[in-house]
């Protein structure tokens, strides 16, 4: 009699479940618009050539060992990351008030950043409505009480900035506020600079802790510095103490190497050694030290001007393709005379578009048309190509015109 006879099978995580259904689907015209992975015009998730060449070099280098990294990660990596996010001239860097800890990609950074906050007495956190599905899971697992701030206005298909500010104003002091630095997931809708300033002012006056999730630096505007504008404003002009969890899964196309980092930016350099030792403790009891491979790859590239230039071009190219696909899709929908407004498709940025389709329409799209999208209507624009854009737009048109909302869902 097995010990674990009575444990339930929990429902699988939606994005992986849908992707699995997609793989099992035998229909030749199937398309997977669910998972947030960049694809090129041939539907391929290619490894960046600059990564391949560094990897070949590393494989031939017999002087490289497999020694443990420090718990806080590879220094050359961490230093480069700070500059990438905060800018080389950042006063926080110059004054030694910022610290980067290598982490297991973005998820890992969010997790240990929240572990740090929790063990130092922070208990309430706010996430945008909606947000990346895993934010709430991480927060709940760590022990936070999770609340939401209004974000997406479903009727007007834009940012509900007044609701956002009102909810922050009602937040208890010392609440942790999870902010998407750019290319909001899932809506693709970011605050404008003026709106960021309002958000910053409110965080200041309510004594809230900004915790930025930066998973798409470069994907929002094509420019790495521009995409870091909000973080840098909060850090340098508004002078918040803040945290940043960055993932290199998307912008380095290094999904499976789990490379990212957590920044802690404080008012005084005295906090840095304390932060580091606490992070070392947290890391030690979870996984001892982070995986080396991805860190060496990113550090080599960021610290070499030629390679870094090549990488930035790669990011720009990815951005441009996504941007082009947004316009293509939008144009096709308009050409078909699809009911509703679709400007949000081209106004949103990053990998995703929040189409506004309801769950019933999403279901029909999948079951009848073999187009897989998330039940909240989120699509990965990257999976649209000049070859499949017509067919996808047509199927969206069909579903939008023929399928109403199902009140039971």
């Amino acid at each position, binding site marked *: 009699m097995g010990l674990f*006879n009575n444990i339930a099978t929990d429902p699988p995580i939606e994005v992986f479940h849908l992707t699995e259904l997609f793989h099992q689907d035998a229909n030749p015209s199937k398309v997977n618009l669910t998972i947030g992975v960049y694809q090129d015009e041939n539907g391929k998730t290619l490894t960046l050539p600059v990564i391949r060449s560094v990897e070949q070099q590393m494989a031939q280098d017999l002087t490289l060992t497999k020694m443990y990294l420090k718990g806080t990660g590879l220094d050359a990596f961490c230093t480069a990351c700070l500059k990438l996010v905060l800018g080389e001239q950042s006063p926080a860097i110059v004054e030694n008030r910022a610290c980067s800890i290598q982490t297991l990609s973005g998820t890992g950074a969010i997790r240990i950043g929240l572990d740090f906050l929790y063990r130092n007495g922070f208990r309430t956190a706010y996430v945008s409505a909606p947000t990346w599905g*895993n934010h709430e899971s991480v927060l709940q697992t760590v022990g936070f009480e999770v609340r939401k701030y209004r974000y997406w206005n479903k009727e007007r298909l834009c940012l509900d900035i007044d609701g956002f500010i009102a909810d922050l104003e009602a937040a208890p002091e010392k609440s942790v506020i999870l902010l998407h630095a750019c290319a909001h997931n899932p809506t693709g809708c970011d605050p404008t600079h003026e709106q960021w300033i309002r958000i910053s002012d409110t965080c200041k006056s309510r004594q809230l802790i900004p915790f930025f999730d930066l998973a798409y630096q470069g994907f929002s505007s094509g420019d790495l510095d521009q995409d870091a504008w909000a973080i840098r404003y909060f850090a340098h002009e508004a002078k918040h103490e803040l945290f940043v969890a960055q993932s290199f899964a998307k912008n380095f196309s290094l999904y499976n190497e789990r490379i990212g980092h957590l920044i802690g930016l404080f008012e005084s350099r005295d906090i840095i050694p*304390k932060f580091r030792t606490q992070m070392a403790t947290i890391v030690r009891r979870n996984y001892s030290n982070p995986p080396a491979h991805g860190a060496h790859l990113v550090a080599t590239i960021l610290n070499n001007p030629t390679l870094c230039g090549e990488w930035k071009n790669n990011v720009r190219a990815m951005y441009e393709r996504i941007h082009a696909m947004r316009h293509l899709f939008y144009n096709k929908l308009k050409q078909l005379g699809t009911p509703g407004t679709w400007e949000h498709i081209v106004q949103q940025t990053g990998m995703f578009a929040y189409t506004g389709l309801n769950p019933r329409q999403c279901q029909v799209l999948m079951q009848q048309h073999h187009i897989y999208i998330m039940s909240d209507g989120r699509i990965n624009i990257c999976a649209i190509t000049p070859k499949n854009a017509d067919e996808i737009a047509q199927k969206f048109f069909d579903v939008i015109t023929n399928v109403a909302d199902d009140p039971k869902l």
Partner: protein
Amino acid sequence: MSVSRTLSLANKHQLWIISKVSRLASTNSWWSKVEMGPPDAILGVTEAFKRDTNPKKINLGVGAYRTDEGKPFVLESVKKAEQLIASENLDKEYAPISGIPEFCQANAKLAFGDDSRVIKDQLFATTQGISGTGSLRIGAAFLAKFFPGNKVIYLPNPSWGNHTPIMKHAGLDVKSYRYYDSKTCGFDFNGAKEDIEKIPENSIILFHACAHNPTGVDPRPEQWKELSSIVKNRKLFVFMDMAYQGFASGNIDDDAFAVRKFIDDKHNLMLAQSYAKNMGLYGERVGACTVVCQDKDEVERVMSQIKILIRPMYSNPPIHGARIAAKILNQQDLRSIWLKEVKQMADRIITMRQQLVDNLKKNGSKKNWQHITDQIGMFCFTGLNQQQSERLIKDFSVYLTKDGRISMAGVTSKNNAYLANAIHEVTK
């Protein structure tokens, strides 16, 4: 724009006071009460070693294999596997949450043996973990959430220093059973049996499968058999930590004896494995956590829950090291090279142990040093007390931890005689 230039002296002074006060107020940072974390004891040894200018200094704190030249060892099988992988231009897309199947399958076969009932009936719920630590962490988290019995884990005394924080942080209570006999520098079998027989039924017990860390003291096969039987009678859930398969005796099957014996005796155990030492993959963080299940249905249910535990930790595992390990385990020529290299590492350690004992005798030591060759694996509990250990550090620049533990990996044919002499001096 400088406001101060246009102000009177009194106003300037006022401004200065305000700015001073506001600076003070602003150092009321959220983090001013944040405590400094305690330094790591083992890292401290290496740091002190680095600062020492004595040319004869020896670092015996390091928990990583070193060649006879004192250098880190990158296995040829690993390098070859890595070069093949680089030439194959494999993708960088997300691995499955539980890791790549070619790694998980090969890993289970390595642990249980190809002919095991666990393999034949596919009764293993295996997930890739972030080396040994991460695999222990996943296992502990699973037990903390789902174990139907007492959420208390019994560790051998002493155990690896990081076991307790991992278990506690995952939500398990931690207790211990007697293990090391400081009088004999060997296994306190009677003490262990007595304590285990008193553990409340339906609790969790952890064993080091081989090469116990930190003592190097392992039960003999017939003692393992008895332990298996006692644990069965007490209805205890077994968690095996196998971080040194192959590295202990040089033979991967011999080192898996305890795990396989327990499986034969129908313990549906939990197993954490690491490839840090036996494949020298330290920084690539390769490991696995396995729950041996009753049937395939249980495997599915358990796997679904483990994936849900991993998602809010780090979503999915790093692939590079797992690809290396999978290639080595699955490709015959690489596997042969690896098996030779693992034996080579183990043999060097065993040789160093023997040399150390011989050198101690040559120094005229009257003490019984048999435990040095009886013990196995990376570490050796010398039997030195704290004062003796401190003298070794201070007077001889031999760096070890205060409990008298030395890492045999730091011993070479060149420093062996010096070490023996130093040990003799502080113990005579």
